[in-house]
């Protein structure tokens, strides 16, 4: 088709179909959707005025994708059956292509019509969330992420298909790895498929101008009046919000393009909500963007009759979209949406279930029905008290992967644990309530002591190995039998001297004594006499040996050998003075003495090793105790321990 100039059939204003691919043009004067047909033009009805969203895009904007230039020539606003709006922009390419650029919650999806031949797609009712649709050609499997119904409520510019105002269409969104994305449009038979990928503005040649404008945009608030009590309330994202609560009368209000309608009074929750962070608080979060808290809710799960509560704060940034700040047991998590196709999910949600995200394994921690107990502020969906979803949490500290499922939608999100100090810094506050217990994805911060902290042990082992040859091999410097003469009385000690021998410096000295005692004893005092200085080192070597038979069992106690080891002595010539008393004092006592040096006893090694292992062992015990505390709160505590690579070293 070519350029067509005509008159609006509704208001007679001049209109022009500039793009050859355009089927419908929105009359800029009367907002009629005018279709061009074989016979001329046809009025399809009026569309509402485009709601002023905070989109960075506008009709007429030019970009490029895959080195092909395009211009945004039209735009439609669609309303989800459950509330919420999103924009579809139509990109007319210089080579004749037509692209669909969908914009929702700060994310952009560029898709193109994909004709399918001899393929039967699943019916809309037959589609299951989470199932893959192999009928659509794609580099990666495409998984059904959302099913829904939407209607066209507003449009502008030129539209490349027959847009009928307020006509409802059923659709399914599919996502795959590497940002692959597709939509099945069930408004026609057979259904149309649009496939492409999630893109950034920079990737489609719109990154230079628009982000700068968006960053400069202040997250402001529109002040409106509550239709119930007349009190003032503010809307931070009037174009995206579907629900807001009135802080004056505690009413839940519907938001329709910034217009408020009273719905009902909020009912007090069973547990008085304590919102630690106030609505309106702003701060720069870990992803580097500044977010504002625009809503807060108290949620709960009931497990084995016990109800647990936590708080979720809705964060908003015009260019990033929505995020969550989760506050549970005074632990904090920053939560971001995740592409469901990036999660390897076996669809098994029981004990031992593991999902993988970006190569990291997450263990199932909880699977329960989460319920909204109380809401405050504004929300981008039609939130209700009592709203329930199936919530499944998987942990790989410091991250938690959460799946929330309803009958027509499944959402994955990734929470990252934030220490209290970090949250205090973000909001510029102090003394946030201290957390209690161990959070499901709280990282263990003491792993240093059994990881890097083992380095001293390794160094010690290396030094011990090196020291073995450096100390020299053990050597015997004296081995002599000394005869102690019979004593004149029982307590009269008898003494004898050894032959002189040499002691070297820097070597321990082991003195061994043995005597042929049998059911008797000998108490030997050995004096090590330095022949030059006459200084004496004394050791006592008691020897006793007893044996016998009792009740048919033989027994023995003690031994005929005993020894003692001394630290190194000054080098020089030494003599042993061996003095003893013994049980059979009437008879002489032969005592064999032996002096050795550089004996490897291992006592030093064991002492140092034990000292060095105390802290790592305590660290491992602490880690075990930490993991036990973490998993005792899990429905699947059998899958405890381990913790994988969850540790950080922040202490």
């Amino acid at each position, binding site marked *: 088709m070519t350029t067509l100039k005509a008159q609006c059939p509704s208001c007679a204003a001049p209109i022009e179909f500039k793009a050859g691919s355009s089927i419908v043009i929105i009359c800029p004067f009367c907002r009629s959707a005018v279709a061009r047909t074989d016979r001329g033009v046809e009025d399809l009805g009026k569309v509402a005025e485009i709601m002023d969203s905070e989109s960075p895009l506008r009709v007429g904007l030019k970009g490029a994708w895959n080195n092909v230039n395009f211009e945004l020539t039209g735009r439609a606003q669609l309303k989800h059956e459950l509330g919420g709006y999103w924009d579809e922009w139509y990109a007319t390419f210089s080579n004749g292509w037509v692209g669909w650029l969908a914009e929702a919650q700060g994310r952009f999806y560029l898709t193109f019509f994909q004709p399918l031949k001899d393929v039967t797609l699943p019916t809309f009712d037959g589609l299951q969330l989470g199932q893959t649709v192999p009928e659509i050609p794609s580099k990666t499997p495409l998984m059904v992420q959302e099913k829904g119904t939407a209607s066209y409520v507003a449009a502008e510019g030129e539209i490349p298909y027959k847009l009928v105002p307020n006509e409802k269409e059923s659709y399914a969104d599919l996502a795959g790895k590497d940002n692959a994305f597709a939509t099945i449009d069930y408004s026609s038979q057979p259904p149309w498929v649009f496939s492409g990928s999630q893109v950034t503005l920079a990737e489609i040649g719109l990154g230079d101008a628009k982000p700068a404008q968006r960053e400069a945009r202040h997250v402001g608030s529109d002040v409106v009046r509550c239709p119930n009590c007349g009190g003032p309330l503010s809307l931070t994202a009037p174009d995206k919000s579907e629900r807001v609560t009135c802080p004056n009368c505690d009413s839940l209000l519907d938001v329709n393009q910034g217009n408020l309608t009273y719905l009902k009074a909020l009912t007090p929750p069973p547990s008085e909500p304590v919102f630690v962070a106030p609505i309106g608080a702003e701060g720069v979060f870990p992803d580097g963007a500044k977010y504002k808290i625009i809503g807060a809710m108290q949620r709960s799960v009931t497990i084995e009759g016990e109800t647990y509560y936590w708080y979720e704060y809705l964060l908003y940034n015009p260019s990033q979209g929505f995020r969550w700040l989760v506050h549970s047991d005074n632990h904090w998590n920053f939560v971001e949406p995740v592409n469901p196709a990036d999660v390897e999910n076996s669809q098994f949600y029981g004990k031992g279930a593991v999902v993988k995200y970006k190569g990291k394994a997450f263990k199932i921690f909880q699977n329960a029905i989460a319920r909204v107990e109380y809401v405050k502020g504004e929300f981008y969906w039609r939130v209700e008290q009592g709203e329930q979803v199936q919530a499944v949490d998987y942990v790989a500290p410091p991250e938690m992967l959460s799946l929330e499922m309803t009958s027509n939608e499944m959402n994955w999100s990734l929470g990252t644990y934030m220490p209290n100090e970090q949250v205090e810094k973000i909001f510029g506050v102090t003394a946030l309530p201290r957390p209690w217990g161990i959070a499901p994805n709280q990282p263990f911060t003491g792993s240093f002591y059994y990881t890097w902290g083992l380095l001293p042990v390794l160094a010690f082992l290396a030094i011990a190995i090196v020291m073995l040859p450096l100390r020299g091999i053990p050597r015997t410097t004296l081995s002599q039998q000394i005869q102690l003469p019979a004593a004149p009385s029982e307590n009269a000690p008898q003494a004898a001297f050894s032959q002189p021998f040499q002691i070297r410096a820097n070597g*321990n000295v082991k003195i061994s004594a043995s005597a042929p005692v049998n059911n008797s004893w000998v108490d030997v005092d050995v004096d090590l006499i*330095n022949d030059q200085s006459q200084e004496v080192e004394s050791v006592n070597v008691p020897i006793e040996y007893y044996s016998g038979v009792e009740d048919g069992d033989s027994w023995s106690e003690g031994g005929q050998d005993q020894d*003692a080891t001394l630290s190194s002595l000054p080098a020089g010539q030494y003599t042993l003075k061996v003095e003893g008393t013994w049980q059979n004092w009437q008879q002489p006592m032969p005592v064999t003495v032996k002096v050795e040096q550089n004996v490897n*006893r291992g006592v030093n090694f064991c002492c140092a090793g034990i000292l*060095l292992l105390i802290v790592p062992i305590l660290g491992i015990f602490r880690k075990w105790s930490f993991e036990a505390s973490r998993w005792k709160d899990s429905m699947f505590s059998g899958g405890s321990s381990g913790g994988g690579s969850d540790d950080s070293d922040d*202490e």
Partner: protein
Amino acid sequence: MFKAIYMILAIVVIAAYATASWFGWEFANAGSNSRLGMPFIYNGFHGGK
């Protein structure tokens, strides 16, 4: 903080072990005649009995 203290203490222990090994000192006597052998604790020479 604790990491630094732990590392310093570990280095002290290793240094003590290496020094004792080099000079032939015994931290402790494992026999029945146990006596600490560190020279600065027990200096050994008393000039006779």
